[in-house]
């Protein structure tokens, strides 16, 4: 073994370690996008009503990087129900549910953002690839605990569940969808969600006028 090989090996080890260390901190991974979104919300360029759609576009871009929307949609349907979905229904459902919850979230923060502060409390590592990050949002000195379940997907930490005041996003929709599907078809569920998204779009239109 010559010097060159050893130095290459060292370089590889050093960089490998850095990469691992980086991947191992879900809380830090989450801070970036949250700060970016807060920045966009504060940016006066987007404060005109006509710019809200553009602002939402920007936030979507960031959210898609950090939220594992596919997994979230999948997790709201129980295992045996999911197997009853055709691949086309699976895809349709995933898309419309993603749009639905994304719109809800952005509408809420766009209309209600008054210098809320996001405080990162701590992270809990369950396994090497599963963690929970605890945060709280402070508005008018009212504190709302928001926790994120994150997992490692292809080397990136992604959110696959959110708890607001202890209420689980996955759990809440899972119960609702299960009850709905007990009496109605999968296509009905997709069309109800589509209607909701249409409604969201209409409301946005009104807001922006």
């Amino acid at each position, binding site marked *: 073994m010559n010097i060159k090989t050893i130095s290459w090996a060292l370089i590889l080890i050093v960089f490998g370690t850095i990469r691992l260390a980086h991947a191992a901190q879900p809380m830090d991974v989450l801070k970036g996008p949250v700060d970016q979104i807060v920045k966009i919300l504060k940016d006066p360029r987007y404060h005109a009503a006509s710019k809200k759609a553009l602002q939402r576009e920007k936030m979507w871009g960031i959210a898609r990087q950090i939220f594992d929307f596919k997994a979230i949609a999948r997790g709201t349907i129980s295992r045996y129900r999911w*197997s009853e979905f055709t691949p086309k229904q699976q895809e349709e459902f995933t898309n419309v549910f993603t749009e639905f919850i994304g719109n809800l979230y952005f509408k809420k923060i766009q209309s209600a953002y008054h210098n809320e502060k996001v405080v990162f409390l701590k992270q809990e590592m369950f396994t090497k690839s599963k963690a929970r990050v605890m945060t709280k949002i402070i508005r008018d000195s009212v504190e709302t605990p928001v926790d994120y379940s994150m997992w490692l997907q292809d080397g990136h930490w992604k959110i696959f569940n959110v708890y607001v005041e202890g*209420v689980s996003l996955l759990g809440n929709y899972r119960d609702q969808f299960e009850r709905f599907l007990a009496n109605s078809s999968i296509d009905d569920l997709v069309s109800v969600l589509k209607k909701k998204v249409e409604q969201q779009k209409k409301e946005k239109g009104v807001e922006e006028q």
Partner: protein
Amino acid sequence: MRYALIVLIVLAVFMTGCAHNSARTPSVEPLTLSSPRHSDPPSMPEGQKPPEEKNKTPGLSNEELDTLYAEAKAGTVHVADPIEPFNRVMYHFNDKFYFWVLKPVTKGYKYVAPAGLRIAVRNFFDNLIMPVRLVNCVLQGKFHSAGTEVARFVINTTAGMLGFADPADNYPQLKTKDEDLGQTLGAYGIGNGFYIVWPLVGPSTLRDTVGLTGDLFLNPVAYVRPVGAAIGIAAYQRVNTTSFHIGDYESLKESAIDPYSAFRDAYIQNRAKKVRE
């Protein structure tokens, strides 16, 4: 005696404050109801994998799917709802009450009352019901928290000018958690019983209703005379509390495909979290 009873009932109605935006509770075993319309999801054993497992989301391994489903299942806490028809009527009544009365009044109040004043009022009432938290800390054996409650009360009542200011908030070691009798009973292992939606009060359960009534005996406002004054104070407190949460109820409602059951689940889950803490 009759007066006392009326005051208790009316106060129960108003004092729960954020019935709309908060939810709370512990777990009762899924007492599945016979009627399929509103019973909890038919529980197909989750461990039993159906034969058709091939068309899964690309990228999710079986192990990851297990993680995902375990997470989703952990987030579901069920409660019996034998009086659902009554509860649904009450839910609609409360919904109308919120949009037609509480929200317009609160918006008017918010317009005239600056945030500083509203926060001071909230602090004052929080400080006032210290006995409720103190007694429930003791009942749960949380003596450290009980001590913290006393320390907070002393600081905020004196340096905080009767509790309108919250100087104790500057000391992280003086942080406290909400405690009430419903949580205490939950900590003793008493289940929810069943779900009840009270007019004006909002979501509750048999256990939490008992808790709420018990806590009223520790609430100084309940002892205000004449009765009308006590009601007025309670109503004002409700409006003040709501002023911090306008929009929360609306977003939770919009987020649901069946708001009634979504609010029920949220209440039960949030209470479960509080009992655990």
